C-alpha cells in the first residue's frame, strides 16, 4: 500500500493496536444489559445496550457497513469480511453480558482481507473495543508511562482515541512519519516533552500537539506535529527532525540528519489528488459497470417480459382447456348464462359483486349453523370445501360465458385477420374473448420490456386489465347466479332477440337461416351454386340474399311463416 491514506490507516491502526492492546487486555469489559443480533440474507447486525444507556450498533446491510448509523465501508455478500462478521455473530448468538462482551472484544479481523476490508474491519474492531471497555478511569493513572523517558511520557486511551479520530492530525502524522523507523518510539500527545541536558533518549520521538524541548540527545529521529521544537544548546538529534505544522526555535543544538518541514497543505493536496484520481477511476469503472448493469438490466427487462408473457400463455392455455371442456359438456348452460349477461349486464354485475361479498358471511354462517345442529355435521364436511369450489366453478363458468359474449362482439366488428372468429363456433368466440382479457397482461409485459420509461403505461394497462377482468368475473358470476347456473332462462329470454337484436342475439335465426340454406343447397336438382351470402363471413346474420329455391330473408320459412317462396 503506497497510498497515503492506506499508510495513514496502517499507521493509526498499528499505533492504536500497539499502544492499546496491553491496556485493553488489562481492562474490564463493560456490562452489556441488552443485545440484539439480527441475521438475514442481506443483513447481519449487532446492537448492544450498556448499563449507562449508551448503545453500539454495527450493521452489515445491503452491502454497506454502518457503525452507529454512520457508514464506515462496504462489503459484498459472502466476502471474507462478511463471512468473518457473520461467524462472530454466530458465535455470540447464545451469549449475553460478560461472555458476550468478552467474545466481541476478543474478535480480531481475519487475515486475507483486501485493503478496503482491512480498513472496515479495523473500524469495527475499534468500535467494539471502545464500546466494550471501561473508559471512565484515565489510563494514565493506571499506567503511568509506556516507556521510561526523561521528562516522563504518558499516553491515555482517550488521547489515542482523540488522535485517531482527528483526520487532520492523522494526515499530518502520516506525512511526518512516512519512511521513518519507529521501532523505539517515545510518544507525547498534547503535552510537552523535555529532554534535559545530559539526558539521552534512545530511539525516536514523536510529539503531537505539544512542544519538544531538547537540551540532551535523541539517538533517532524527532517528529513534532502541531507544536514547536526548541533546540537548545547541547541538544542533539542524531537522526532527522521533521516538523509538521510546527515551528522550530533554535538556540544552538545540532541536527545530524535533515530538518524537514512537512507541509500539510502539500500532503493534503497530494492526498486529495490521489483521492480524486481514485474517485475518477471508480466513477469511470462505475460507469463502465453501470453500462454493464444497464445491459443486464435491459436484458433483465426483456427476460422478465418474456417470462411474463410465457406465464400469460400458460394461463391462456389452461383457460382454453377449461373452455373446451365446458363448451363440450355444458354448451347449453354457457349459452343461457351468456344470454343472461347479454340481456341484463348491469343486473349481472350487481348480483355478482353482491354474491362475492356475501360469499364469506354465508360460508361462515353455514358452518356455524351446520356445526350447532347434530344432523348438520355430515353436511358440514361437504359444506366447508364445497361452497368455495362451487363458487369458483361458477365464477369460471361465468367468466367463460362473458368471454364468449366478448368474442361475439369481436366477431361482429369483423376485424381484419380475425375472420376465424365465428359466432357459429362457440369455442372460437370464447377463445377470442379470453384472448381479449389476456391481451392486457401481455401488453403490460411487452411494455415492461421497455424498462422504467414505459413503466407508467405498463401500470395503466395493468390497472385497466385488472378492472376489466374483475368486471367480467363479477358479471359472469352474477349471470350464473341469475340463471341458476344456466338452468333458468328468465333473464336470457327477457328479450325477443330473434329479431330485436339482430347482431349479438341472433344466434338462432342465423342458425336457422344457415340450416335452411344448407338444406336448400343440398336438395337434388339445386343448380346453383348453393346459397349466396352477402359476405364471405359465415357469421353474417343477413345471410343469404337469394337462392334459386327461394329463401330471401335469411330466416327459416317455417319459423317466420313464409312458404318458402317469399310469400306468407
Amino acid at each position, binding site marked *: 500500500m503506497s497510498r497515503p491514506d492506506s499508510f495513514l490507516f496502517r499507521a493509526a491502526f498499528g499505533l492504536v493496536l500497539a499502544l492499546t492492546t496491553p491496556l485493553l487486555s488489562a481492562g474490564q469489559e463493560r456490562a452489556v444489559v441488552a443485545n*440484539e443480533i439480527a441475521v438475514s440474507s442481506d443483513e447481519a447486525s449487532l446492537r448492544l445496550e450498556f448499563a449507562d444507556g449508551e448503545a453500539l450498533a454495527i450493521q452489515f446491510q445491503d452491502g454497506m457497513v454502518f457503525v452507529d448509523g454512520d457508514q464506515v465501508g462496504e462489503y459484498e455478500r459472502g466476502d471474507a469480511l462478511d463471512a468473518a462478521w457473520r461467524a462472530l455473530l454466530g458465535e455470540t448468538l447464545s451469549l449475553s453480558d460478560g461472555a458476550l462482551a468478552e467474545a466481541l472484544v476478543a474478535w480480531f479481523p481475519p487475515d486475507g482481507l483486501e485493503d478496503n476490508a482491512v480498513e472496515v474491519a479495523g473500524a469495527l474492531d475499534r468500535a467494539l473495543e471502545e464500546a466494550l471497555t471501561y473508559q471512565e478511569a484515565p489510563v494514565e493513572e493506571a499506567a503511568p508511562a509506556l516507556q521510561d523517558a526523561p521528562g516522563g511520557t504518558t499516553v491515555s486511551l482517550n488521547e489515542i482515541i482523540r488522535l485517531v479520530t482527528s483526520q487532520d492530525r492523522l494526515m499530518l502524522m502520516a506525512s511526518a512519519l512516512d519512511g521513518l523507523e519507529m521501532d523505539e518510539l517515545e510518544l507525547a500527545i498534547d503535552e510537552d516533552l523535555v529532554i534535559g541536558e545530559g539526558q539521552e533518549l534512545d530511539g525516536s520521538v514523536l510529539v503531537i500537539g505539544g512542544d519538544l524541548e531538547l537540551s540532551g540527545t535523541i539517538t533517532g529521529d524527532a517528529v513534532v506535529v502541531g507544536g514547536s521544537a526548541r533546540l537548545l544548546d547541547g541538544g542533539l538529534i542524531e537522526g532527522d527532525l521533521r516538523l509538521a505544522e510546527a515551528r522550530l526555535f533554535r538556540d544552538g543544538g545540532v541536527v545530524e540528519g535533515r530538518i524537514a518541514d512537512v507541509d500539510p497543505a502539500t500532503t493534503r493536496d497530494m492526498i486529495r489528488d490521489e483521492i480524486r484520481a481514485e474517485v475518477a477511476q471508480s466513477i469511470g469503472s462505475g460507469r463502465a459497470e453501470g453500462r454493464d448493469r444497464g445491459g443486464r438490466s435491459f436484458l433483465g427487462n426483456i427476460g422478465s417480459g418474456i417470462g411474463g408473457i410465457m406465464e400469460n400463455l400458460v394461463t391462456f392455455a389452461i383457460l382454453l382447456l377449461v373452455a373446451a371442456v365446458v363448451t363440450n359438456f355444458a354448451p347449453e348452460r354457457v349459452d343461457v348464462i351468456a344470454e343472461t349477461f347479454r340481456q341484463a349486464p348491469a343486473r349481472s354485475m350487481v348480483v355478482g359483486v353482491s354474491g362475492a361479498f356475501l360469499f364469506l358471511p354465508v360460508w361462515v354462517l353455514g358452518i356455524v349453523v351446520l356445526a350447532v345442529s347434530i344432523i348438520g355435521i355430515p353436511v358440514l364436511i361437504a359444506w366447508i370445501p364445497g361452497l368455495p369450489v362451487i363458487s369458483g366453478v361458477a365464477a369460471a363458468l361465468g367468466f367463460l360465458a362473458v368471454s364468449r359474449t366478448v368474442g361475439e362482439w369481436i366477431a361482429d366488428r369483423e376485424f381484419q385477420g380475425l375472420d376465424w372468429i365465428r359466432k357459429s363456433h362457440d369455442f372460437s368466440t370464447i377463445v377470442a374473448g379470453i384472448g381479449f382479457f389476456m391481451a392486457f397482461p401481455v401488453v403490460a409485459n411487452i411494455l415492461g420490456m421497455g424498462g422504467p420509461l414505459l413503466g407508467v403505461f405498463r401500470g395503466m394497462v395493468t390497472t385497466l386489465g385488472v378492472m376489466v377482468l374483475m368486471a367480467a368475473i363479477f358479471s359472469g358470476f352474477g349471470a350464473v347466479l341469475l340463471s341458476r347456473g344456466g338452468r333458468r332462462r328468465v333473464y336470457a329470454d327477457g328479450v325477443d332477440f330473434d329479431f330485436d337484436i339482430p347482431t349479438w342475439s341472433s344466434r338462432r335465426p342465423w342458425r336457422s337461416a344457415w340450416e335452411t340454406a344448407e338444406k336448400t343447397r343440398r336438395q337434388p336438382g339445386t343448380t346453383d351454386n348453393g346459397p349466396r351470402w352477402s359476405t364471405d363471413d359465415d357469421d353474417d346474420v343477413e345471410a343469404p340474399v337469394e337462392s334459386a329455391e327461394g329463401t330471401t330473408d335469411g330466416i327459416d320459412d317455417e319459423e317466420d311463416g313464409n312458404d318458402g317462396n317469399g310469400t306468407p
Partner: protein
Amino acid sequence: MGTALRRAGLHSALALTLVAGSALLSGLEAQSWRTVTNSRQAGSEGEVDVRIKYAAGQFEVRPAERGLLYRMELTYDEDHFDPLSSFRNGTLELGIDGRSRNFDLDDDNESRMDLELGRGVPMDLRMEFGAVQADVDLGGLSLTRLQLTTGASESRIDVSEPNPEAMRRAEFEVGAASFTATNLGNLNAEILDVDAGVGDLELEFSGDWRRSARVNVDMGLGSLTLIFPRDVGVRLEKDTFLTSLDADEMTKRGDYYYSANWESAHIQIDVTVDAAFGGIDVEWVR
C-alpha cells in the same frame, strides 16, 4: 407498483376463475427469513409488563436463569411480519406481528420464536397468539397476572414449577383451537377464567396449591376435560345447553356437583362451566 405486484393483481383475479388451476399460475415468492436474537439482563426494575404477540408459527416459552430478564430467538419471514422487541418504562414487548392478514399458514409454519423469561422478575404476562403452535412452560416464573389469547392455535401450557408470586387472576381466551393446560395448581392464582370458542380444552389442576381458587369456564362448542388431583375439593356448577357431563366420583346436590372431600379439603376449587354444545369430562389424578 413492483413487477410481482402487478402480475399478482392479474393472477389473483384469474385465480377467482380457476380455483385449482390458478395455483399453477401464481409465482412462488421467495421468502426472506430473518433471525433475531435478543437478550436483556434483569435490572432493578420492579414488576415488568410483558406483552408477547405472535402471529403465526411455532412458539416456545421456558424459564431462564436468574439475572436474565429475557432471551429470545426469533426466525420469521420479514416480507410478511414485523418483529416486536422493545423495553420501555417497565414494559417489555416481544414477538412478531403480521403485516397483512393474507399469508399462507403452511409457508409461515417455519416461523419460530423461542423465548426464555427470567425467574425472579415479577411479571404481568400477556400473550397473544394467532395461528400458532405454542408450547409454553411458565414454571418458576414470578407471575402476578397472566393473560393468554389464542386464535386458531394449538397451545400447550405447563406450569412445571410453582409461581412464587400470588396471582389474582389468570385468563385464557381460546379461539378455535386445541388447548391444554397442565399443573395449573402451580399458577398460584385466585381466579382462573377460561373463555373458549370452538375446540378441545383440557385443564389439568395438579401442582402445589397454596390457596383455594375459583375457575370459570365459558365454552362455545367443543369438549372440555377437567382433571383434578384427588387431594383438592371440587365443586362444579354447570350452566349448559346440549352439553353432556361425565363427572365421575362427584355427587350432585342442588345445582352443584361435589367431590367426596369437598367439605374436608384444605384446598377447594370452585368451578363454574358455561357451555353451549359439547361435552364435559371430569377426571381425577393422584
